[in-house]
């Protein structure tokens, strides 16, 4: 964990969290936001009912390290695919995308093939947090290994 005694503090990992589309189930996204904060990350909480365009614009403006999405409406393939594809138009090709929610295994594999990191419903909270750090090539302990 990042702590005050850390000898080489890196800039905190900066994560944008949003719900694309019209889905309103924001329990998971808020829990992840609190867990990431507790692990020392800086969270830009964009909230729900955002278009792919709004999310990518905010990610570029805020210069975040990771984009985190939560989708429980079944629209994960369509929305995930378009966000991953449109990253380049915002100069975000290298920005990792982590997707959580109600995502069947076959769809999770598809999203992984397209370049996303996927944590379906039932994932362990600590593993999700570690996974977000790892997606950005950072270690959660804040030992200065980050980008």
């Amino acid at each position, binding site marked *: 964990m990042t702590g005050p005694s850390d000898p080489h503090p890196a800039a905190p990992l900066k994560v944008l969290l949003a719900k694309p*589309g*019209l*889905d*309103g*189930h*924001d*329990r998971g996204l*808020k*829990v992840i*936001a*609190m*867990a990431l904060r507790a692990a020392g990350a800086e969270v830009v*909480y964009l*909230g*729900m*009912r955002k*278009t792919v365009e709004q999310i990518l614009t905010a990610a570029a403006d805020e210069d975040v390290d990771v984009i985190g999405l939560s989708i429980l*409406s*079944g*629209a994960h393939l*369509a*929305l995930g695919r378009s966000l991953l594809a449109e990253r380049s138009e915002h100069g975000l090709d290298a920005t990792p995308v982590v997707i959580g929610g*109600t995502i*069947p*295994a076959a769809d999770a594999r598809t999203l992984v093939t397209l370049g996303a990191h996927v944590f*379906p*419903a*039932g994932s*362990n*909270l*600590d593993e999700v947090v570690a996974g977000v750090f790892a997606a950005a090539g950072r270690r959660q302990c804040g030992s200065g290994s980050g980008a």
Partner: protein
Amino acid sequence: MPDRRAFDTAVEHLAPVVTDSGIPVAPLYTAADVTGDLEARLGLPGQPPFTRGPYPTMYRDQPWTMRQFAGFGSSEDANARFRYLLAQGQTALSVAFDLPTQLGYGSAHPLAQAEVGRVGVAIDTADDMAELFDGLPLDHLSVNFTINATAPVILAFYLVAAERQGVAPTRLAGTLQNEILKEFLARKTYVFPPAPSMRLVADVVEYASEHLPRFNPISVTGYHAREAGCDAVQELAFTMASAIAYSEELIGRGLSFDTFAPRLSFHFATTLDLFEEAAKLRAARRLWHEIATGRFGATRPESARLRFFSGCSGATLTAQQPLNNIVRSTIQCLGAVLGGAQSIHVMGYDEAHELPSEEAVTIALRTQQIVAEESGVTRTIDPLAGSYYVEWLTDELHRRARDLIDEIDQLGGAVAAIGAGVPQRWIAEAAYRIERDITDGRRVKVGVNRYVDDTATETQLRLFEVSDDVRERQCERTARRVAARDASAHESAMRNLDVVARHGSNVMPALVECARAGSTLGEIGALLRSVFGEHEEPSPW
């Protein structure tokens, strides 16, 4: 003579435990824990304060209504699922709408692109609604509509669908959720700001109290706050605080409490802490009686008689070892029955992965049928009454919820508290605590943090798939209908709606005119957005 001191000594080393809502529980309860006039707190079934049930006969007369929530794709797709469920012995319908319909966007709207027909059925016009119930006689069915921000529009479409079947509004039975406060609080399909939203809720309730004597025009709901993470005490308090806010809104426009209160219905979750949940539901009836008589001076017994629908909890189900969810749902269904539910929905065991498959929906219905017809729990009314523990817990939940209602009153009531984002924060914090407790092993989830099956390969489920061309078909169909409608009738109905919405009279008659004229939900939604504006959630942090 029992030796209490010896007993206390024998149990004093036991570690303290709490209920799911954090209420400390003693190893044993006795008559000494149920003090005061218990008979007065209980009454009899069908009699104030209704702790033992809203009706004198309860399940001895007929079991609860088995109402599985269903809907997806187009109106024909959903109609086929409805027919299937009725053929399987389901006794009423419960319609799920897709997100564009819930949010007042037509299926062709850019924001609707990935969402048409996904979490429910897509309804763009009154014609779609008529097709949804094709061949299903609306004078013989009770229909529940999970719809909120656009509830007045959906009700107007439904009235026109009934009209085309030749069914008079007075014969329609069912429930419109029409509960916007819990949308701001937890479910999040709000559209308009709180003030116009409360007005639309009241328009529907007022219209129904004049025209729809068998229909529940609102279902005051704690379910979604519970699913979003709050505990049983908060669920009770949020529900009652919301019921108070709606009642004040209606009284504010000149209605007497006794004209609308008998048609208010309620909706609670039932989770896994069996006795706490049964006690919560018993406490809810007593609490509403206290509020209806004490705060609002109800004079008719029905005005203070709480009836509710119980949705079993999806948030307690797990993605891991999904068949275990059938057992969890059985316990939850039992809790709802021991709590005296009027209707129940049981979750599909696969819902942590996808919308429930037909197999999962059938098992959920069979779960209810087994509890109703094999377990024998329906033989006598309120069988837990008189249990020292359950009565103590009922009193405790009642007391704690009343204290929290006082606290919400101090914040200015439900509308002000929710407007300031206060209970939303309580819910998010509670959700985080639960997740932390599961992750750290303080809260047991079988198959997740205990009895984990490391050898399990990918779960094989027969998942439900919505066909990909639903949106295309739906857009084509709506375009065809728009082209075929009488344009001048539509335009004049919309102009009238605009005037009514701006000037504050009841929108329902104008909406029924729009529905008859073939105006679409997307067109009506856009008009109401232009009049009322849109709500943006305050930042949670």
